[in-house]
């Protein structure tokens, strides 16, 4: 079952403010391709402005991509999400749900929790009113909230409880794919762990697939099967979690790992820090998007953009770097 691919994204490109021919504007997602299996968690990591949220929103068709294909496979067969009308998308939307970072912003503050969780059932006209009520209560209980939560309003709940409501609401229509956009970033550490464990348990119980957008590599290491590292809308590296954290192939991945704060064991760790900040996405591009900050960049990197291809040392990892085969990043730290 787990080998069954449910999502296949090919050459996804999105330009905000593009002209009619699909050119110009701001290149937010640049030729991104990946697949996702049933019951798999693929994390998308990168700094702000890297396009990680935008990819998730393209898959949910909250944004219209300019090019590329998003193939979604369900019991009903195979569909291309990029070329469907709003009406055709409606039944598919039951199967692809989103979970947002800020449950305050995504829950209507004037609706009771019971109505909020029942809303997707009403929209998709699923079940009788009595069945809907039962489903709402059983889901609230499953995510760890009491049946009495039904009559409360969002402001009466804590941040962690509100995120649980967001999860219950996304699950009412029995989706196959959940797009989680920084779902635990706004939560305190102790509550964050509760929600992460809940997401893991629900995945096993319901066979859910997750696209997990996060900037926190510790969380990503905990929850993912595979990880995509994104920089300025472009995939730098796509690898299994174990490979990525043990032996990163791309200098940017290495830099992200080095930047993680960690204890220094009683000595002053002379820490190496990546200089500069992520550039604006409107800059004219030539060469590798990361070349400006890369300690290993050469003339070739300034001139020519590397393509994403299997890494010679571990073909299971895909990497977009001219020098990936020659560099040994396993132990070194990025220089100041």
């Amino acid at each position, binding site marked *: 079952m787990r080998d069954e691919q449910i999502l296949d994204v090919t050459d996804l490109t999105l330009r905000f403010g593009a002209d009619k021919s699909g050119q110009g504007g701001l290149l937010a997602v640049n030729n991104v391709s990946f697949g996702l299996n049933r019951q798999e968690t693929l994390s998308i990591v990168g700094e702000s402005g890297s396009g990680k949220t935008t990819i998730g929103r393209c898959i949910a068709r909250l944004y219209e991509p300019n090019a590329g294909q998003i193939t979604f496979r369900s019991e009903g067969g195979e569909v291309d999400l990029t070329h469907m009308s709003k009406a055709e998308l409606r039944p598919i939307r039951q199967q692809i749900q989103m979970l947002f970072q800020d449950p305050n912003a995504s829950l209507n503050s004037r609706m009771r929790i019971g109505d909020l969780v029942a809303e997707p059932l009403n929209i998709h006209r699923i079940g009788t009113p009595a069945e809907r009520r039962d489903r709402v209560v059983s889901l609230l209980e499953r995510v760890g909230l009491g049946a009495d939560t039904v009559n409360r309003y969002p402001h009466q709940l804590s941040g962690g409880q509100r995120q649980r409501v967001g999860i219950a609401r996304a699950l009412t229509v029995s989706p196959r794919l959940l797009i989680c956009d920084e779902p635990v970033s706004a939560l305190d550490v102790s509550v964050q*762990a509760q929600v992460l464990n809940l997401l*893991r348990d629900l995945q096993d119980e319901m066979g859910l697939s997750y696209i997990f957008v996060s900037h926190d590599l*510790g969380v990503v290491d905990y929850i993912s099967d595979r990880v995509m590292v994104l920089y300025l809308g472009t995939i730098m590296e796509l690898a299994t979690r174990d490979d990525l*954290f043990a032996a990163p192939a791309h200098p940017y991945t290495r830099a992200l790992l080095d930047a993680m*704060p960690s*204890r*220094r064991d009683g000595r002053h760790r002379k*820490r190496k*820090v*990546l200089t500069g900040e992520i550039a604006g996405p409107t800059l004219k591009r030539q060469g590798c998007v990361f070349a400006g900050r890369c300690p290993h960049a050469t003339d070739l990197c300034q001139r020519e953009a590397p393509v994403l291809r299997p890494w010679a040392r571990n073909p299971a990892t895909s990497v977009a770097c001219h020098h990936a085969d020659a560099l040994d990043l396993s132990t070194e730290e990025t220089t100041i």
Partner: protein
Amino acid sequence: MTLLSVQGLHTHYHVEQGTLRAVDDVSFEIAEGETVGVVGESGCGKSVTARSIMGLLPRRIGEIAAGEIRFAARGGTLDLAQQDPLGPVMRDIRGNDIGMIFQEPMTSLNPVYTIGAQIVEAIRLHSDLSKADAWAKAEQLLERVGINEPARRAKQYPHAFSGGMRQRAMIAMALSSDPRLLIADEPTTAVDVTVEAQILALLEELKRERNMALMLITHDLNVVGEIADRVIVMYLGRVVETTTAARVFDDPKHPYTRGLLASLPSLGRRTRLTPIEGTVPGPHQRPAGCPFAPRCAQATEKCNTQPPTFRIDAETSVACWLYDDAEAGHA
């Protein structure tokens, strides 16, 4: 030498629903040139503690109800808790002796003045430098905090700066008077991880070159492990544990500190996280005894009474009945 000594601090917020004990009998010390991390989840009172020191409590709502905040200012040691927060003494302390930076620099920077003008304002409030000299100093400070082309950048408005550069500009402003203590309230929470690493490295450098003490308020234990010497762990307005940055990871004492570590996803950790049960109670549902008892797996009947602070040794003290065979003392 002790720079700051907070003893038995109680800060109350008077709100519609009654009086809120935001900081409840907090004691700690910061030595000259030392980095102390204050950690805890939202609502634990870490920011209110900082605001109490700075005299920045909201007017008519926040009040220091009891306690001492002794600070070794350049002009002699003062009890900041006794000063009028709006008076000349506190104004002088805030500009000259203690600097503060906040989580979101955009809310502390004025969008309609250039970065340079705002730093010049800070400089001239506390010195008699001429405008031209103050401007030159502002450019030097911007250069020192790692902003390229400081002369050009000083003439720009905050919106032209990225998040990381704004935080650097705030640090430049806080440094303008050469403070002996810098209070940083979640300085890296709103920035990307690569920028966070840059800001932490900068703070560490500045602090070493100026022998400045740093009080770093954060919810992220990993940040504390990265740069702090000592750690204060707070829960519901109380200090539950004071220890060294190394020990907080190797030998945490208080069940809450242990719970935080067990909840913390970090690189290489693959075992299931064990979260602390429940949530931080609302400020009006403060438990009668130990504030952590309702969520604590090791709680006993004894915990219905607030535990005193037990001193384990010179470096570690903990407010938990599990350690009552150790000698009771003050942190």
